């Protein structure tokens, strides 16, 4: 069986959760006898030397069954490819490879019409699509967070979407939805990493029978200490991820400020991650002001330290430096791979009470939940975590092993074979 996996980027080139999951699946499928996975990763002009004259699909560093789709000029509203040569190259690629399964992990950078084209070229192949966010539903970056007030959005209508993006008339959202659905019709099976996402897509109009919940599975991070350190105070908090708005590092810093104003300073926060340049101007300025102010304090008064970017292989050692993993995301968070990483390192998670985190973290059993996007609630939760005796031990003991790559591969293989939906309880 040949499985073609389309990934929004190659994780060697651009980090991100969706490509990480696609890559893990590719690596996992390689271990399965009788399965030949092929990895096709889109790229962008951020690495211009990858673009060879006249080429549309090339190999990747001589690695077997790994290819780059040299994406170009993709319309960000329609997610439509504008270059016929890319379309033709993909069609040729399909006909040469003749995969039994084509598994899309995104349409971004490829163009959503590749779904229909795949069906057109290979009428008998099975097309699987994994949603990593809500880009099909939501033109506002696919987060389903209202640009009007930052609140969560649970369904799209032309009027609601127009309120988020007033420059687009209501009819444009109707057309966008119809266009997306027209191409998604080609898909045989959809998967979502968290069960709550099913509700959004079902309400949007996708058939419930086509949507399966398959959790993102991972190999455990490298460098995990054999056993957690024995220490009394559990006052070290860590953030891991991109410094973009929706990941909510700004909310964490606001919570720190509140605690400092309260006179509570007996804790530390370590920020791991980068890509601050992709944050909005407002949040970037807010974070940069915080960093600057923090650095002017005497070393003994500093609470927050910025550890910068890290390679996935460093995850274990970075996690070893903290007690609690804070996930302050201000969107639904489709799965939050970082929760799996924290659990693999036996670190309890502090996360918002919505979406993927709320589905995964059980409050006061294996972690703590706080009111979504509420800096005061997060501050109170941090304080409680830092001072409540035995809380850390209780929660750490409640952590179950996160979903594994093997488990994920098994569930996808079942889906590829036409198996019925594999559903986890919400």
């Amino acid at each position, binding site marked *: 069986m040949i499985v073609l996996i389309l990934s929004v980027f190659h994780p060697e080139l651009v980090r991100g959760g969706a490509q990480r999951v696609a890559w893990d699946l590719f690596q996992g499928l390689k271990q399965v006898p009788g399965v030949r996975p092929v990895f096709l990763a889109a790229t962008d002009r951020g690495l211009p030397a990858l673009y060879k004259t006249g080429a549309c699909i090339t190999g990747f560093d001589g690695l077997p069954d790994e290819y780059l789709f040299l994406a170009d000029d993709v319309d960000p509203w*329609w997610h*439509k*490819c*504008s*270059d*016929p040569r890319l*379309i*033709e190259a993909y*069609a040729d690629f399909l006909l040469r490879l003749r995969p039994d399964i084509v598994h899309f992990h995104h349409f971004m950078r490829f163009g959503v*019409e590749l779904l*229909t*084209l795949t069906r*057109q070229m290979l009428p008998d192949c099975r097309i699987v699509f994994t949603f990593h966010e809500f880009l099909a539903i939501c033109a506002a970056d696919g987060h389903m967070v209202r640009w009007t007030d930052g609140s969560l959005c649970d369904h799209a209508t*032309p009027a609601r979407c127009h309120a988020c993006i007033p420059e687009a*008339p*209501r*009819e*444009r959202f*109707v*057309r966008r939805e*119809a*266009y997306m659905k*027209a*191409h998604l*019709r080609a898909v045989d099976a959809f998967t979502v990493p968290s069960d709550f996402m099913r509700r959004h897509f079902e309400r949007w109009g996708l058939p419930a029978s086509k949507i399966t919940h398959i959790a993102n599975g991972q190999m455990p991070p490298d460098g995990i200490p054999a056993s957690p350190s024995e220490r009394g105070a559990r006052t070290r908090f860590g953030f891991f991820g991109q410094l973009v708005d929706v990941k909510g590092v700004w909310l964490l810093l606001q919570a720190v400020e509140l605690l400092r104003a309260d006179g509570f300073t007996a804790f530390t926060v370590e920020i791991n991650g980068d890509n601050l340049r992709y944050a909005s101007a407002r949040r970037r300025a807010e974070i940069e002001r915080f960093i600057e102010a923090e650095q002017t304090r005497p070393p003994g008064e500093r609470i927050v330290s910025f550890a910068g970017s890290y390679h996935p292989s460093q995850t274990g050692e970075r996690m070893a430096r903290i007690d609690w993993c804070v996930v302050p995301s201000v969107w639904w968070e489709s799965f939050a791979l970082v929760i799996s990483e924290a659990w693999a390192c036996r670190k309890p998670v502090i996360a918002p009470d919505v979406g993927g985190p709320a589905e995964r973290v059980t409050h006061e059993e294996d972690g703590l939940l706080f009111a979504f996007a509420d800096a005061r609630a997060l501050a109170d939760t941090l304080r409680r975590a830092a001072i409540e005796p035995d809380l850390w031990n209780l929660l750490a003991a409640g952590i179950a092993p996160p979903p594994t790559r093997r488990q994920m591969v098994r569930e996808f293989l079942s889906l590829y074979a036409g198996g019925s939906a594999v559903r986890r309880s919400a």
Partner: protein
Amino acid sequence: MSGSPEAPADFDEAVYLALNPDVAAAVSSGASASGREHYVRFGAREGRRYLPISGEVRAPVVITMATRRADGSRAPPPAAFGVEAVHMSPGGGVFVAGWIDDATDPLASLTLRGEGFEYDLAQVSLARLRRSDVETRLGSGARHPYGFWSFLDLGRDLARIGTCQLIIRQESGAGVTVEAGVLSVPDADLRDAVLAWLAGTEQFGDRHAATVACLEGGLGAHLVAHSRRLTAAMVADPFVQRFGPEGGRVRASLVVCLYGLPEFLFLQNALFAGLPGIEEYELIFVSNSPHLADRLLRDARIASLVHGTRQTLVLLPGNVGFAAANNIGFAHARSDRIVAVNPDVMPRQQDWAQRHLDTVAALPPEQTALFGVPLYYEDGSLMHGGMYFTLDSAPVESRGRLVRHDLVRVEHYGKGAPPDDAALTRARPVPAVTGAFMSFRRDWFEWLGGFSDGFIFGHYEDADICLRSLAAGTPAWLHDIRLWHLEGKSSPRTPATEGATFVNRWQFSRSWAAAIRNGLLGPAPLHPLLRAPR
């Protein structure tokens, strides 16, 4: 006064004189030292313009005062006047605009004289309009249309004419001859500028009715003739490219006219493709926007690969409007069933294409020679269940009298009604159907002579062809096949398209008001061919 601190930094002597011919006359006669001096001393206080508005003449205007009466005596000049635009196009369009203080001494003639031609515009094509800026300048509170404008389609090459004369005469004998520099403008630009001008004109009383009324007396006819001439040239040699599979049976052709927004090509491919019955259709896109050519060619190539659709792209060198674009699209169709579809029409019933073919196959030919369908707004309510006609009557001021003007209004049955009102969606003959979706038997469409390209850009040509069909004994029908129509969002509106709306309404009313009064008025017309079967 050169370099006076009161003169604006962007003051231009030549432009100021061109915009203010009376000042030019004063400078010419020595009464003023220069335009700049005049502006500083008087012009700024009088609110005179020293910068041209878009499309306004920048060519120099030279005044000669040697106008003479019939007896050869020298005529006194008008009390105050201005010639603001003399534009000509290679295809023969002429646009003249200006104003005159003739409240007490009416304008008797306005003669345009050039190499080999001479026309009294007042006789062939002249409209008066309100000019509140002139009222301010003259300090006049009179309800008098000081402005004038004219458009002529001379049907001859005017590309090389550099100057012409405009001879103004008033009833008292006062007059002036203006030697005007001609601004040469491409034909389509001139048409669009004149339509934009029309859309922006000021009127006394009911502005809409008065603007339409000003097209009487030749202006409207010359505008239509000019537009027709342009259209004929633009559709003469289109760029045509076919995509997708050759051969196979084509039972129906969907013709979509694109203007301004290219996205509808890939949208309609995506939304129509794959639906039951659609494999027996072809798509024909006709582009009125030459700047979209490259994008449309790429998208058509992609869409044919992605969807396997049979399609034809017809690219035109300019905007010929809905009627001519559909006519040429139909001419390239490969089937006997041709359907005009607006770009913003989308399937509401997934089996609409099959139902359309079944309807054509099952019903008597006279019920399917020309038919429309129920269309719906994006909010789910009915947008179109057929069309009918009413009349708007308005008094229009003309030389101190109120003249009755009847303008035909085209209404939709059930606009905004609940979606399933059978009285509105059932099959029946109707006075007209919208051009957003019109299905024709090809031979009937051709016998009718196609859409009339006299309607500029769009509007009313759909009702016009329905009325011509009715007059020939075959009414339009409505059949219950349902689609969405995101009305009015498929192409950007411009001042020129606003102006065209006035011309089209004038033309439609002139052609059909009498017939509509005689049995076609209102939602329940008495015309015998429109009696619905029960």
